[in-house]
């Protein structure tokens, strides 16, 4: 790690993004104004599974209602990994002959405003012949179940088996055997800004301009251009301010494609602003994991292996570009967690059901895997009657690099330090003493821990292994300096609220010896920024940050060469600091150098081209990723009468390597934890037997508010990565991974006297009471948990 200028790396710089939002002057897609703009409302399937026999447009509104046929020829996008065992299907922009989930778009209605578009949608008649709905992920795989996609052999997108080590041998020798079923229910990502897209044909540039609330404008351009049969240069995607995404805005939704197609067809501006009900019903859903697992340990609590089945309910269709193919394999590979177990056997099933298609959501397969393994670890501890923290101490990976039995190449870290820091921060001994005394209000206190690793910034090799058709193995940045010495940093990565306009400016400032105020980061416009894959997979700071470092550093070298010429010294003798090129006998301002490079070529040394404009790509040296990790600790109080759970304290001891901006890192962790608490206790879209979603507004879909989220306290451990610029590790997803496990472990701790087992999220009051009743019944019959 070489520093070449002022140390902006690690500085708590206040965010550049804040001012516009604090003035109410941000610009989200819904804020874009366009003369003649019309609104779209979709007609959606009321049934989960049906043959679509016809659509009748209401009289007088024929020209305002559009079906798939009306949108003109569209190319079917290939939506699958590049592997023959994966079954794919066409998720059409509007349904053609069959609907496969309640809420699937069938037709679109156009009017001068959304209310009138909804009026028309209410009048559209849809002729459906209902089919049996496939709702349960295990039943879906039973022989004889109706198939969603008739050309598939069964309802699995893919099934697979991981078998590493010798599970048969382990099963024979293990002193401890714990068998559990775990379920993490279904939810969408619930960005506060719903999905939004506005499209129009720009006659001046000959482009379809698509304002798009997305995490990856460049990749979305590829999909839109291909589907509509346009040249890529004919499509310009602009992601303005994006009001959160968390993964849910990293897929091309059929509605979004339909809007683009309609704007191209009509050559007039149209928009669709997803409303909250649409978001809950039909935006990419997530989680919905089901596990049947057995953990084996020896008499000292050393985890020997994990064996069992992993089901992921991936919903009715694969979503472009990559379907949900990573979810099960990522989950299975993460089952050993940060532990030294040497045996793993998992049968995985990624299953199609009549529910909304699955997309990625903060953590993807890891919250489920973490929930499973961390619950199992606590059960082993309770079997042995030892402190769960102690059990973890015995099992943690302690020397690096270490390749887990799941194939994760853990690069650097101090996992014990993280565990100890979390136990200290929450004050484990004090809590045990408090529990021994009991609570005056009759509630039970419980303390739970959970740990995880977070693979981040993985490169080409890893993605090739996963057989993606798009390999997000690098990122791109352009550092461009104007004649006054200020910088535009154009990045292919996309910020959707996480502060990259600040952190990336810090990187360029660091490399160029400038103040971050001299650097303006631009992203989110295919006509402005160089190509990039977008923000997901905790990759932005590793990949995009790395690209920004490289392009800025390279530009800095050029500044030094020109500066050296002006200072009459050698480039090697100069350095950049405080806006100056410093030489042994004096300095020249970077602004002066920039003036020479841009508008006074007569002042340049021989062999140096004018203009300060460098574009570079970046991929870390190690493509297996760098691993952030954390220990979460949750202290809860449970009301045994109602099953209500209150979080009394929540701590995180995390290590994401070098932090570019600790302020932003804290915010990422705290925000992630809040989402994880939502998964753990509140958020769920249940379905009835007919596949009808039962939470369609915030009255039924409970979002945690300021009373539900405690003050989340943090400790940082810093173990720089070896393979990345500055030693950074990606960390955006981590906060959301562990809360379900930590909170369920806390509940289990609160009732360990009866060995109650809390194995399904969200842990609603009803589920808590059910688990307590089951435990009490077991105690009565003397049955083992």
């Amino acid at each position, binding site marked *: 790690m070489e520093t070449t200028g002022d140390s902006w790396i690690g500085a708590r710089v206040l965010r550049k993004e804040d001012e516009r939002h604090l003035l109410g002057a941000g610009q989200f897609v819904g804020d874009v104004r366009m003369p003649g703009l019309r609104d779209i409302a979709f007609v959606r399937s009321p049934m989960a599974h049906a043959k679509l026999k016809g659509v009748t447009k209401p009289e007088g509104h024929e020209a305002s209602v559009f079906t798939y046929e009306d949108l003109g020829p569209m190319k079917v996008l290939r939506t699958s990994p590049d592997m023959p065992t994966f079954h794919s299907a066409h998720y059409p922009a509007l349904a053609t002959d069959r609907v496969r989930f309640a809420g699937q778009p069938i037709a679109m209605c156009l009017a001068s*405003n*959304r*209310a009138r578009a*909804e*009026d028309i949608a*209410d009048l559209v008649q849809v002729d459906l012949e209902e089919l049996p709905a496939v709702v349960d992920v295990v039943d879906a795989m039973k022989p004889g179940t109706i198939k969603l996609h008739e050309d598939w052999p069964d309802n699995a997108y893919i099934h697979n088996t991981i078998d590493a080590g010798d599970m048969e041998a382990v099963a024979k020798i293990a002193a401890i055997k714990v068998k559990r079923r775990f379920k993490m229910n279904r939810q969408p990502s619930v960005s506060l800004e719903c999905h939004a897209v506005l499209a129009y044909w720009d006659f001046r540039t000959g482009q379809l301009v698509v304002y798009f609330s997305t995490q990856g404008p460049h990749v979305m351009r590829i999909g839109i251009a291909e589907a509509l049969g346009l040249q890529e240069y004919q499509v310009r995607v602009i992601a303005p301010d994006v009001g959160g995404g968390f993964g849910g805005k990293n897929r091309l939704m059929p509605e979004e494609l339909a809007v683009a197609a309609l704007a191209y067809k009509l050559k007039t501006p149209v928009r669709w602003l997803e*409303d*909250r*009900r649409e978001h809950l019903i039909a935006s990419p859903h997530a989680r919905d994991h089901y596990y049947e697992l057995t953990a084996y340990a020896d008499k000292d609590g050393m985890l020997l292996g994990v064996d069992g089945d992993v089901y992921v309910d991936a919903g009715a269709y694969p979503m472009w570009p990559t379907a949900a193919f990573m979810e099960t394999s990522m989950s299975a590979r993460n089952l050993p967690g940060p532990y030294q177990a040497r045996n793993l056997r998992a049968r995985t099933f990624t299953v199609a059901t009549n529910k909304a298609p699955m997309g990625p959501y903060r953590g993807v397969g890891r919250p489920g895997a973490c929930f499973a393994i961390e619950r199992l670890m606590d059960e082993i501890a309770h079997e042995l009657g030892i402190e769960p923290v102690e059990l973890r101490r015995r099992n943690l990976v302690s020397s690096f690099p270490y390749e887990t039995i799941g194939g994760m190449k853990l690069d650097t870290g101090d996992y014990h330090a993280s565990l100890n820091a979390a136990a200290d921060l929450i004050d484990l001994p004090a809590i045990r003493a408090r529990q021994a005394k009991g609570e005056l209000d009759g509630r039970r206190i419980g303390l739970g821990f959970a740990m995880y690793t977070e693979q981040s910034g993985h490169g080409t090799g890893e993605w090739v292994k996963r057989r993606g058709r798009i390999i997000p193995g690098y990122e791109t940045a352009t550092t461009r300096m104007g004649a006054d010495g200020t910088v535009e940093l154009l990045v292919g990565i996309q910020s959707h609220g996480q502060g990259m306009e600040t952190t990336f400016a810090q990187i360029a400032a660091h490399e160029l010896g400038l103040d971050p105020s001299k650097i303006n980061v631009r992203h989110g416009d295919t006509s402005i920024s160089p190509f990039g894959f977008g923000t997901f997979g905790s990759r932005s700071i590793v990949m995009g940050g790395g690209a920004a470092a490289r392009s800025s550093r390279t530009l800095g070298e050029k500044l030094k060469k020109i500066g050296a010429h002006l200072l009459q010294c050698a480039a090697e003798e100069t350095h950049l600091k405080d806006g100056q090129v410093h030489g042994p006998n004096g300095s020249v301002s970077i602004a002066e150098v920039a003036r020479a490079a841009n508008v006074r070529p007569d002042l340049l040394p021989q062999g140096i081209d004018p203009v300060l404009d460098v574009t570079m790509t970046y991929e870390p040296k190690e493509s297996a990723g760098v691993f952030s990790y954390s220990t979460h600790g949750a202290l809860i109080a449970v*009301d045994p*009468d*109602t*099953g*209500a759970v209150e979080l009394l304290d929540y701590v995180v001891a995390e290590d994401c390597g070098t932090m570019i901006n600790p302020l932003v890192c804290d915010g990422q962790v705290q925000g992630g934890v809040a989402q994880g608490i939502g998964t753990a206790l*509140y958020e769920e879209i249940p379905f009835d037997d007919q596949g009808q979603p039962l939470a369609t*507004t915030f*009255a039924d879909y*409970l*979002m*945690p*508010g*300021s*009373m*539900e989220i405690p003050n989340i306290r943090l400790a940082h451990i810093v173990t720089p990565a070896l393979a990345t610029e500055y030693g950074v590790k990606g960390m955006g997803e981590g906060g959301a991974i562990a809360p379900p496990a930590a909170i369920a472990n806390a509940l289990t701790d609160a009732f360990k006297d009866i060995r109650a087992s809390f194995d399904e999220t969200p842990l*609603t*009051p*009803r589920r808590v*009471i*059910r688990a307590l009743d089951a435990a009490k019944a077991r105690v009565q019959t003397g049955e083992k948990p």
Partner: protein
Amino acid sequence: MKPAPFDYVRPSHLGEATEILVKGQGSAIPISGGQSLMPMLSLRVASAETLVDISRLFELKTVEETSTGISYGAATTHAAIEDGKLPDPSRGLMHKVASGISYRAVRNFGTMGGSLALADPAADWPACLMALGALVTIVGPDGNRTVTVPELIEGPYTTILAPGEVITSIEVPRLPAEARWGYSKFARKSGAFANSLSVAVIGGGNKARVVIAGSSTSSSLLTDTASLLDRTPDATEDDLKTAIRDDLTKVDPNGDDYQHRSHAAIVLRAVQQARLP
């Protein structure tokens, strides 16, 4: 998520409002705070041909002391009660209840009369006002009538209000100085509708009133529990539990085991709070 079209009228006095509402025969709906009606209209689960804006009618805004208590105009907002700017006959119960309804911005506009007229089973005011023995004055085409809250509310989202009838005021009797109240509410998250909500008012020479309400249980008086408390003010917890269970079987026959347990726990807490010295 936008409402279907409707007409809008803003009558200048109550008589005009009832006239329009009678003429509309159910297709005309009164709106005041709109905090419950607007989401239903936007979701298109409720509709109206005409919305009759009664939010500015002075007849619904009068708050006055009567010989026995306080009469609140139906348009009295939750926030007005929460802020303690109005006289309080309930010795703090109404303030406590008001400050726990939904969220502040909603409390600024949501009204007591609206809450009663909607009769959401999980709402706070019907339960609270039932426990306080409030009287509800209704004005309609055929004149006034005054009813108790149990008479007003027939079940979830169902009242005796006929088209054209508007709740104009709610009279809350003054609690005697020796009376005590208890209030317990269990919701899955702050501001959400209650799973279980109970209000108990005992002592002071009045008959005890204990009310349960909740997501699928319309506000109901628990009569066995109340008579037990009247007979035996210091009844044991076990006896109370038995009475509560018997009551719940009657008032909430469709509630499942979990719901009854949650209700029973919340009722017991309200009663115990009311019995604190």
